[in-house]
């Protein structure tokens, strides 16, 4: 029943956007309750529709639910508009709308003092939710791209939320404005690549419908080289949106927006769009193993690279931002490694490899779900801390645990979860990711050095994650009272703590879903398009058995505990001075990390040298060539008119002379023709 109305999920937040945009100022809380209502309705519809799909006939025979209507016909290319629901869309819809709902409720407390600007805030976050919901239920790439761009726009607007008047003065406003621009322009680079990829797909398939593009017969019919280029370009789009290396640098800057917006971008929407794009495009990505190994390496490198920058950052939100980058890298690592195994399995007809590939896919999607919960929790918790302490600098915090019991406990749960403490949600998905990287070696399928490298990247990141998360937690909530702690207001209002508690429950337990058929449900999404492969992957208790019988799991647990212990020694017990390792912030490595590997400077250099040069070239082209052609043509016409107007003397004699000259010429011509034809 509800499945036919699933298109309402983006439409209702869109209506909220319009209503709040026009009437927000006349409403209570600047329209906040309308936004909450919209998210709630979207969540309920998603929940009912997902339930119907999973219990329905289509799911049982591995088919997606598709509803389409014709949107455009361009020559032979048909573009449709519709919904495509499979288990991947279902989980995306569920966690996006649920976490958005939590964030909107939290915003009532967090944004309460923003007065008139709340209208803008609630309108834009509603539109953001529209973008995400539309993205995950789209039935074709073009429709997806439209919602993808809506999210890009909203991220720009919301990151720059304080660009007009910041509480902390003009510099902060300028930072917000430039962070918004950076986010928009850097992701734009990915979007352009994505669009180019879509052009190639449209050219090859004559359609952008998932049902057409993912159909085995169609894939077999197209040129593999073109398909490889298209997948690489689509992946570049995902890299931009999900802030992977080398397009990662906008995400830390995006912390200039309100913390709730960061939570929205990092947990529920935006950056999850890139991961979703790769997961959704899995059937065309697995056609070429090299593309998949690239995905895995970009992910693995970003994971370790971003985690290193989180090690010494003093800004509570930036630590979380880097950890998001790092965790997104984990997701790409899992998807890429799994995709590589599946691609090899498809080429050699090895069913075991295909099953392991599907396990990687499950790990990536599963980590995305878990990450959504604990990252939303951590961001909202840090928002609560900032709300109370009035600063983002962790050096000024410390000892907040006594004043903010709920926040500190919920954030502890979030930190344990992201660090991969056994049995919390992050543990299950993180170890599933590592298991994917280990799979070839452990199943006697040839331990390739690539997978060893991926596994090392993953496990080192796991250690660093545990360390920096607990560094953050101890610096904020334990130890001596900082100056900001003394002025802190104490615990945040209930509208902020209740979402924290709810999210903490999920951060504790969402990983257990893997024991109860979640992996099977996610695999069904692959079976919808790659059904002919007869994918069989481990599920439920078998996965748990795999994880706990694997010696490397215990290595990763030990490393996690070690990271936490070092964090405790350095920042709580203070028996180890972190200054010893970085020469009190003077060592070259420390400075390199503080400067973010000079990436902002590299971006600037590239945009000034290359971007500005290209812009100047384009400007020259525009002014001289295009305008030149237009102006030249008009000048030629005007000049010709000027010179011909000299004939118009106004003198009757001249006119008469011209008339008779004409007559004489005519007569001469006629006579010449007659003579040439041999007389009359």
């Amino acid at each position, binding site marked *: 029943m509800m499945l036919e109305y699933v298109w309402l999920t983006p439409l209702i937040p869109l209506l909220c956007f319009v209503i709040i945009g026009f009437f927000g100022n006349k409403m209570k809380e600047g329209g906040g309750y309308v936004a909450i209502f919209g998210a709630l309705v979207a969540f309920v519809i998603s929940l009912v529709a997902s339930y119907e799909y999973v219990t329905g006939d289509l799911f049982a025979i591995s088919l997606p639910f598709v509803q389409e209507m014709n949107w455009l016909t361009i020559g032979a290319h048909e573009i449709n508009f519709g919904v495509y629901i499979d288990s991947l869309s279902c989980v995306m819809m569920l966690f996006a709308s649920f976490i958005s709902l939590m964030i909107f409720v939290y915003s009532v407390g967090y944004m309460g003092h923003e007065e008139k600007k709340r209208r803008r805030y609630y309108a834009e976050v509603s539109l953001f939710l529209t973008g995400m919901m539309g993205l995950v239920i789209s039935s074709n790439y073009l429709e997806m791209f439209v919602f993808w761009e809506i999210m890009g726009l909203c991220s720009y607007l919301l990151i720059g939320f304080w660009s007009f008047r910041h509480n902390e003065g003009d510099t902060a406003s300028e930072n917000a404005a430039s962070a918004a621009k950076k986010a928009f322009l850097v992701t734009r680079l990915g979007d352009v690549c994505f669009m180019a990829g879509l052009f190639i797909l449209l050219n090859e398939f004559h359609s952008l419908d998932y049902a057409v593009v993912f159909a085995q017969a169609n894939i077999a019919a197209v040129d593999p080289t073109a398909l490889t280029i298209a997948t690489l370009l689509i992946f570049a789009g995902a890299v931009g949106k999900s802030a992977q290396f080398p397009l990662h640098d906008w995400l830390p800057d995006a912390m200039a927006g309100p913390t709730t917006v960061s939570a929205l971008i990092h947990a529920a929407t935006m950056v999850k769009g890139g991961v979703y794009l790769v997961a959704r495009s899995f059937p065309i990505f697995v056609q070429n193993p090299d593309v998949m190994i690239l995905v895995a390496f970009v992910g693995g490198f970003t994971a370790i690279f971003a985690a290193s920058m989180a090690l010494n950052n003093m800004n509570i939100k930036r630590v979380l931002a880097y950890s998001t980058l790092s965790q997104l890298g984990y997701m790409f690592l899992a998807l890429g490694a799994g995709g590589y195994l599946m691609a090899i399995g498809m080429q050699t007809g090895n069913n075991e490899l295909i099953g392991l590939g599907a396990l990687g896919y499950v790990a990536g999607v599963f980590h995305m779900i878990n990450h959504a919960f604990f990252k939303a929790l951590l961001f909202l918790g840090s928002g609560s801390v900032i709300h109370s302490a009035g600063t983002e600098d962790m050096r000024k915090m410390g000892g907040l645990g006594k004043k903010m019991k709920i926040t500190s406990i919920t954030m502890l749960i979030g930190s344990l979860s992201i660090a991969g403490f056994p049995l919390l949600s992050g543990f299950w998905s993180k170890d599933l990711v590592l298991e994917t990287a280990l799979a070839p070696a452990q199943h006697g399928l040839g331990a390739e050095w690539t997978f060893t490298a991926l596994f090392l990247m993953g496990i080192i990141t796991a250690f660093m994650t545990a360390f920096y998360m607990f560094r953050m937690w101890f610096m904020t909530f334990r130890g001596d009272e900082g100056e900001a702690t003394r002025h802190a207001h104490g615990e945040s209002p209930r509208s902020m703590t209740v979402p924290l508690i709810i999210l903490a429950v999920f951060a504790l337990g969402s990983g257990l879903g893997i024991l109860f058929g979640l992996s099977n449900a996610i695999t069904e999404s692959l079976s919808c398009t790659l059904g002919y492969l007869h994918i069989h992957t481990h599920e439920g208790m078998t996965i748990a058995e795999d994880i706990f019988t694997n010696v490397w799991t215990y290595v990763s647990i030990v490393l996690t505990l070690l990271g936490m212990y070092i964090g405790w020694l350095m920042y709580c017990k203070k028996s180890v001075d972190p200054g010893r390792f970085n020469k009190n912030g003077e060592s070259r490595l420390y400075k390199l990390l503080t400067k973010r590997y000079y990436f902002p400077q590299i971006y600037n250099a590239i945009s000034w040298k290359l971007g500005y040069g290209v812009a100047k070239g384009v400007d020259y082209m525009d002014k001289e060539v295009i305008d030149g052609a237009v102006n030249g043509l008009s000048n030629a016409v005007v000049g010709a008119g000027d010179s011909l107007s000299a004939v118009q003397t*106004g*003198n*009757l*004699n001249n006119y*008469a*002379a011209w008339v*008779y000259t004409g007559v004489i010429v005519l007569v001469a011509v006629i006579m010449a023709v007659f003579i040439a034809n041999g007389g009359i």
Partner: protein
Amino acid sequence: MIQIELFLLLSAILFVVGLYGVLTTNRGIIVLMSIEIMLNAGNINMIAFAAYWGSALGQVFVIFSLAIAAAEVAVGIALLLNVYKVKKTTKIDDMTILRW
């Protein structure tokens, strides 16, 4: 019977005289008169051919032509009179205000 070539010669001479007048003079009245001479050169041609072919059609056309010429002169003179009222001259060199 007078040869037709002589009529045509007379007509051509008259036409050239009229043309010379139109092209060289700057006096409006003379221009109108010269146009009349050219018109009548044409009329002579028509009558001559009518006589040559033994057909009345050419003569009928000449009657029409004369009537229209009279009307045209009336209009021309009226225009010149009005110009004279405004500019106190009928010289066509001075009537150049409508050019670019």
